[in-house]
């Protein structure tokens, strides 16, 4: 662990929201280290706390949300000691940038594209208007906008969805951030554009050397781009490992469920797999393993005590009692055995999985 270059380190993070006089715990004691230059994907279903988790890095929680415990270390500083917006402005956008889900609404409709890019350059790099314009046009061409100079003065409504997402990425990269958080960057785009945008982010990450954090529930994207994967469930990271670890040697029953639900693995004639039940309410305190009520593999202890993070290998950790030496031996479900071969078989027919 020591020899790795950790750029961002989260320790024991707890985030609570006040919703209609009730307290909701969105993030429950999450610790995670991000290695510099790597692509980390955070996967999980809606409401598992993926977005909230990454929002704490830039102090972008909604007003009713609060970090009640934990530390986030970045460049030798604990970001959680920041109180004012002013302190955050050094980090937000400048060192940690975010790309949001919906490019159609992420841009101000009544400001020109050029204005919205050069604004950031002027602000964070103290450049003059002309310099900023020059740099903005370069960035625009870099993210794949043709005739960037002419399109500089156009408005967002004159751009297509994919082009707008390119612009959003250009804005995010305008200050050469250390970390780029992509909050479901391709969900609102159609499949062909998705592949282009993902490839673009990947290329830019190599070129600019930033660390990428993907938030997604699209396992296809994960398989395609991620170095490491964190699986989140009910406000906790329940499994963490390299993409190979997660796809070919998953250990947590929830990860099994997720992988089994890949529609690509469905067999003709049989029903697609779905995880039964619903996630637990985060308003109440969760006892034991949060996934236990929905799991086919739950043990008695799962309902009693929360499992610790078990170490599977140097890179692979999972939070399930199944890894305890005393636990009975359980095989992962049949659908995801030999996942490697199945996926290879699928990708040989084409599709974005093959691009890796």
């Amino acid at each position, binding site marked *: 662990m020591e020899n790795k270059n950790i750029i961002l380190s989260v320790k024991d993070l707890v985030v609570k929201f006040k919703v209609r006089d009730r307290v909701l715990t969105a993030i429950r004691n999450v610790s995670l280290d991000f290695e510099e230059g790597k692509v980390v994907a955070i996967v999980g279903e809606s409401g598992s706390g993926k977005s909230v988790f990454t929002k704490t890095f*830039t102090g*972008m929680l909604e007003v009713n949300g609060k970090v009640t415990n934990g530390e986030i270390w970045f460049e030798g500083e604990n970001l959680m000691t920041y109180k004012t*917006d*002013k302190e955050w*402005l050094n980090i*937000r*956008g*400048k060192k940690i*940038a*975010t790309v*949001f889900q*919906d490019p159609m*609404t*992420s*841009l*101000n*409709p*009544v*400001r*020109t594209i050029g204005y919205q890019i050069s*604004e*950031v350059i002027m*602000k*964070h790099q103290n450049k003059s208007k002309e310099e900023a314009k020059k740099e903005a046009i370069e960035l625009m061409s870099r993210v794949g906008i043709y005739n960037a100079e002419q399109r500089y003065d156009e*408005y967002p*409504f004159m751009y297509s969805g994919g082009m707008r997402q390119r612009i*959003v990425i250009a*804005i*995010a990269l305008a*200050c050469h951030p250390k970390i780029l958080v992509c909050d479901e960057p391709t969900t609102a785009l159609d499949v062909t554009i998705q592949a282009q945008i993902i490839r673009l982010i990947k290329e830019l990450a190599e070129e600019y050397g930033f660390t990428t954090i993907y938030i997604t529930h699209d396992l296809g994207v994960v398989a395609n781009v991620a170095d490491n994967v964190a699986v989140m469930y009910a406000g906790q990271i329940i499994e963490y490992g390299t993409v190979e670890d997660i796809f070919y040697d998953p250990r947590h029953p929830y990860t099994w469920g997720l992988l089994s639900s890949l529609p690509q693995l469905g067999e003709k004639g049989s029903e697609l797999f779905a995880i039964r039940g619903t996630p637990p309410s985060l308003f109440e305190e969760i006892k034991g393993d949060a996934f236990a009520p929905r799991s086919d593999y739950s043990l008695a202890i799962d309902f009693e005590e929360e499992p610790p993070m078990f170490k599977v290998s140097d890179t692979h950790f999972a939070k399930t009692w199944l890894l305890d030496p005393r636990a009975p031996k359980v095989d992962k479900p049949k659908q995801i055995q030999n996942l490697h071969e199945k996926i290879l078989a699928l990708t040989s027919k084409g599709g974005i999985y093959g691009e890796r």
Partner: protein
Amino acid sequence: MKNYIFSRVIKSIVAVMVVVSIVIVMLYTMIPRYKIFEKDEGYKKMSGDARTTYMYSRYEELGYLDFQQKSEMCSNASDNYEACMVNDSEELNAVISEYENNGYVVDYLRNGDPFVYHDYNPLQLIWNFYSKLIQIDHPGYVKDENNPDIERKYYIGESPNGMPAIMCSGCQYKYQLYFNSSFPFIHINAIHFNFGISYPTNEGMPTWQVVSQGQGSQVSTEQTFPSGVVEKSPLNQYTCQYKPILDTIDQRRFTDNYANCQSYYESPSMINTSYIFGIIALVIAYVVAIPSGIAMARNKGKIVDKAGIVVINFLIAVPSLALIFFVRQIGSIFNFPDRFPILGFEDIRSYIIPIIILALLQIPSLMTWTRRYMLDQSNADYAKFAKAKGLSQKEIFTKHILKNAIIPIINGIPSSIILCISGALLTESAFAIPGMGKMLPDAINASNNNMVINLTFIFTALSIFSILIGDLLMTVVDPRIQLAAKGGKKK
């Protein structure tokens, strides 16, 4: 764009015409017509045939019906005028039955003279109104038996202030187009709206002149007349019309027959009075409401916002009439007049309280909307992204949210300008301010039909065109909006 504006203007004109037509039909067919005489003292003193003839000629003048007395009937319908003028003659009876067949009602005066009339149907009423509405001046206008050789031509001359002007001989107006220092600087006399004669109030004056002419006593200034005479006089030479018979003063001043001029008055006209109050109040309302609405949105849920909501709720909850009298009462404690005419136009104190009230009436809704638009926009995704970009809260508000939130507010400004005249109705009445707002209820009370139609026309035209202007303004501030004559077609 041009096509769009053109089609919108056409639609607006049609809309105004429809509204005015409905008002005309309602006024003429649904309100008992004898009401117009309620304020007419002369009519009350009359009796017998004089009263009957007066009544029907009034009705005819005001456009209710076509009224013809014996002499008119005979000259219109008979070849033998002399024979026709004898009561009970064959000729006259033939004429009467001819009129009867044409749908006229026949009646007899006490002296035995017959007369006929027939009410106009709604279509005729509307046609009569619009066919006379626009009067275009032309060199053939003047028909004066004493002056048959009048030159008929347009020419470029010099107006009293030394500026060139397009002038006319033979027209109704001498100055067809001229420039001077009063708004809107270019003035045209060639085209006039004719909304009929005001009756029974301001009897005999064209209604347009009633609302647009200055009020109070006349103001004389030193001026040079065409003859070279320099005299103090209140006359406004630009408005001079043809006058068939000149008196000695006219002969001394003028070299031609254009001596029938309007005058300068010390106080502004009804339209201008309303506008003075309305515009000042409006500016105050915007200056107060928009910054406070923005401040409320920026401090949502905090003390500023809560205080603002209390103020808004108070102003909205109190009925406007109550608010008017309440503020007026407070004003009189501080020695402000509670009626406008007490101190009149010259004294600034006459204006303060009505303007405060007018502004107060508009502030709550403006504040609410500003706050709402700002909040809507600050929840938009682009605002969140702007935050993620690392912009400060202040930059997000001023550079991004404000520009979006201001769009609907700008769209509403022209309508507010219009509303400030028609909305001033209560305030003007409460303070007896001689403006247009007060004029409308006065005209309705006095059954001054032409005045009601005229004001309806003004208000409707202003509101419909203000919406058009609002939409055009919107294209300036919102790049997404491009006006197209047909839906969806760009440019």
